[in-house]
């Protein structure tokens, strides 16, 4: 049997609230520190303690980050899912199981490594045995895969940063696990890890924290939010970092309000944007649903403010701790009546940072709500990050008149008059004394005065559309990977970035060469249309049921291109798996006859 090095998936089945998350992150960090491309996905329940949780670690020299199609190493720790987890395994899978769970090993076709994890933990610390037992399996895995104890210790000390007692306890637990494995188990599986050359210039970070930092470097002044998974860690990240980065002589240069609900959070950022501040909220789909009325107000009254949606599975409460790209259409067309919003769609943690600060510039430039679109997979999982680029442009505060001189320079000023022909009017701020108006959600003319006149309304709505559509080519450009053949092109967006390479490799193995275009903002950049013109067959790839970007493209692309578009949309709550989407793409291509 030949060894399989740096190419496997570990699935760890535990219950939440038992400390298993720390153990799993130690393992992930160890692989990372060895320079091995690796990623972790936390499949957790909407619960604080006691329900099943799975943590999937993919180790891949190819840099593949999606959960693989198969589990190669299964850790069984949770009684409740024991039988189901065991039944799902392919023959030959490695199973590391806690004999103290008092559950039977019913499979004979797997590689079984029984370990009395709880008992070992109890010898170390009876009180904390339940928690410490998690680190026992980390030690066992380390021994089986050949992870150096030094590497493990380093990861443990990172995980428990500064807490000497916790570090000591966990390091000892890992050592005991390793010792047990060495003395009692005979390795008969092929899986091993080997260190890889690494420049040491990468670190792990969750998308939400990257976004939090980006928002701060965007000069956030007001944060209003209401807790909701999976977005809370955006707000908490901002709250955590702001004092260090933005306090001045011990005083805050920002305001943070935990609102009574999402409606209030939306109202607060609109009030702050109206007053002249950079304001944002972070929420998820249910929150955006509640904010609809306010989003329409900010669109119609032309008030800058930033909404971040970290998408979870809908509709309704849905699968609140699972991932999806199901809110794209809602964000793009939020609120009643004719509306259209700028949507920024990061696909990597680096872009979470970048779009975090850019969102404010775009919102103030176009005097309109800007929607940021992330998802649970990107936001709440740890991803390797190469660092963040410092903003390369000064803050763009948009067309704000601050002095009488500036105002006088404009002939025939009106709050909603399109002076420059770009659809963007000038605004003044409350308190300035410059052309005060009563902002309103009702129909208004170019001076902001109430009006129900048909031509006034018609022209206003046309200008608003023009303003938003004009933004398209000034938003983050789509990214392309093009094949010379230019036959099939895949259009995708967001966190799908993290599996596209693997999809591409799978397709290439079947002899298919496909180009790719990653959309990073709505409205669609003109280069998306050009990409479509260059490719006879377009496949729109997304993590939802209905193919939402597909729908948007069908609405906005020229009629003659529409027959090229095919949708591959799928969502089951799990992070997307490359093999699944590749198969669906192949099916479509077969149907189309390409």
């Amino acid at each position: 049997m030949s060894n399989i090095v740096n190419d496997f998936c570990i699935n760890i089945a535990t219950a939440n609230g038992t400390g298993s998350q720390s153990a799993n992150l130690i393992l992930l960090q160890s692989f990372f520190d060895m320079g091995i491309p690796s990623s972790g996905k936390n499949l957790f329940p909407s619960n604080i303690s006691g329900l099943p949780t799975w943590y999937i670690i993919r180790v891949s020299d190819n840099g593949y980050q999606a959960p693989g199609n198969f589990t190669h190493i299964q850790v069984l720790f949770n009684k409740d899912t024991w039988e189901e987890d065991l039944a799902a395994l392919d023959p030959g899978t490695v199973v590391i199981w806690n004999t103290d769970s008092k559950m039977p090993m019913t499979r004979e076709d797997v590689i079984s490594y029984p370990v009395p994890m709880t008992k070992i933990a109890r010898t170390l610390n009876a009180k904390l045995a339940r928690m410490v037992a998690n680190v026992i399996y980390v030690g066992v895995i380390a021994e089986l895969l050949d992870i150096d104890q030094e590497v493990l210790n380093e990861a443990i000390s990172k995980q428990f940063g500064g807490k000497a007692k916790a570090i000591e306890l966990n390091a000892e637990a890992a050592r005991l696990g390793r010792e047990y494995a060495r003395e009692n188990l005979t390795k008969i599986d092929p899986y091993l890890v080997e260190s890889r050359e690494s420049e040491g210039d990468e670190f792990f970070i969750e998308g939400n924290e990257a976004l939090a930092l980006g928002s701060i470097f965007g000069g956030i002044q007001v944060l209003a939010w209401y807790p909701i998974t999976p977005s809370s860690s955006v707000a908490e990240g901002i709250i955590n970092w702001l004092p260090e980065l933005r306090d001045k002589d011990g005083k805050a240069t920002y305001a943070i309000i935990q609102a009574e609900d999402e409606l209030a959070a939306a109202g607060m950022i609109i009030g702050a944007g109206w007053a002249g501040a950079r304001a944002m909220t972070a929420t998820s789909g249910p929150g955006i649903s509640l904010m609809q009325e306010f989003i329409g107000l900010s669109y119609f009254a032309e008030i800058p403010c930033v909404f971040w949606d970290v998408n979870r599975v809908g509709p309704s409460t849905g699968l609140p701790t699972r991932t999806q790209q199901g809110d794209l259409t809602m964000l793009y067309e939020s609120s009643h009546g004719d509306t259209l919003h700028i949507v920024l769609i990061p696909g990597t943690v680096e872009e979470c940072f970048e779009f975090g600060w850019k969102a404010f510039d775009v919102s103030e430039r176009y005097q309109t709500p800007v929607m940021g679109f992330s998802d649970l997979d990107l936001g709440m999982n740890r991803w390797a990050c190469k660092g963040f680029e410092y903003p390369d442009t000064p803050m763009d505060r948009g067309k704000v008149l601050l002095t009488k001189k500036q105002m006088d320079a404009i002939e025939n000023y009106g709050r909603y008059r399109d002076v420059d022909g770009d659809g963007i009017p000038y605004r003044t701020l409350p308190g300035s004394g410059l052309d005060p108006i009563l902002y309103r959600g009702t129909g208004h003319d170019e001076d902001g005065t109430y009006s129900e006149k048909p031509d006034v309304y018609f022209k206003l709505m046309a200008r608003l559309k023009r303003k938003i559509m004009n933004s398209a080519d000034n938003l983050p450009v789509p990214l392309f990977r093009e094949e010379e053949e230019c036959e099939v092109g895949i259009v995708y967006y967001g966190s799908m970035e993290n599996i596209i390479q693997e999809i591409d490799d799978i397709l290439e193995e079947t002899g298919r060469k496909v180009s790719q275009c990653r959309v990073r903002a709505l409205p669609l950049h003109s280069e998306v249309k050009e990409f479509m013109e260059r490719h006879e067959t377009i496949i729109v790839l997304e993590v939802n049921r209905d193919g939402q970007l597909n729908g948007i493209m069908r609405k906005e692309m020229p009629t003659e291109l529409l027959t090229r578009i095919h949708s591959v949309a799928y969502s089951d709550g799990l992070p997307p798996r490359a093999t699944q989407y590749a198969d669906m793409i192949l099916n479509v291509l077969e149907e189309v006859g390409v």
Partner: protein
Amino acid sequence: MSDKPVRAVKLNVINEPKDSYSGGKSSLCPGCGHDQVSAVIINAAWENGIEPHRIAKMSGIGCSSKTPAYYLSQSHGFNTVHGRMPSVTTGANVANKDLLYLGVSGDGDSASIGIGQFIHAIRRNVDMVYIIENNGVYGLTKGQYSATASKGSKKKKGITNETQPIDMCAMAINLGCSFVARSFSGAKKQLASLIRAAMSHKGFALIDVISPCVTFNNNDESMRSYGYVKENDVELHTLGYIAHFNPVEEVEVPSGHYRDITLHDGSTIRLETISEEHDPSDTMAALTALHEAEVAANHVTGLLYFDGSKPALHEDLEMVDTPLIDLQEDVLRPSKEALDGIIAGFLG
């Protein structure tokens, strides 16, 4: 040059004529109590000598929320969405704490759809004046009962209200609101004093103004009609607001009295002005006065509760002295060194 004699225009303490505080023409029903409130707001702002452009007019949706168009044309304003004026004002307030936020709402806006935001704005003690123009009825949608309509009230046409009302003042006191008053749209002097005091208050100042709807809720069976209020009015002491620039100004209205006020249609409203003995720092006394008035089917008016020591939201947030909106990029965007430091920390 005209040879007509120049008529002296009366100016306020900052040399502004009252015209600087006026607004557009009202489109409310003739005789609407809300227009009287608007007139009082104009007077109060003028007399307090506030620079018009330093006021921000805030409102939700409804008849009352339309009124910001009818006063203070030189102030920015925001006619927001139904029931959500408190949150918009909260956001604006923390962004620019130095403006005077003047919110006008109605009983539908504040006691029903917006009651959650109303409560939380009080809870946070947002620095604002919050006037409820309270008529117990939805005017703009043509006469449905609101949540403040008294039990047993009867509209001109239609059924009797059998649902018990919410007393916004009692609720505000229970929530720890730092300034709670009730008045009547026709009691100009008292209302002016209360609004002027509220404008000087740092924190959430609620004035629940009984403001009869002349169209949908003005028959004597309605407890908010002019007729009813005139018959059942007991006046508490009218507040003698003393402005900081005019320490001698006083308002002469007897306290501890009932007063029946005749309204435009000849009906009356009985207001009771809270007595001079009433201690506005005494929560229980304020609640007792409200309770007794409710039992007697009167409206007790005046400053019911006051606590000037409570920190306002913008103080709780411990922000820099400069309003946030005046901070520039050098303060708002951390340096490149700061980012490098963060990344170095992540790299370990």
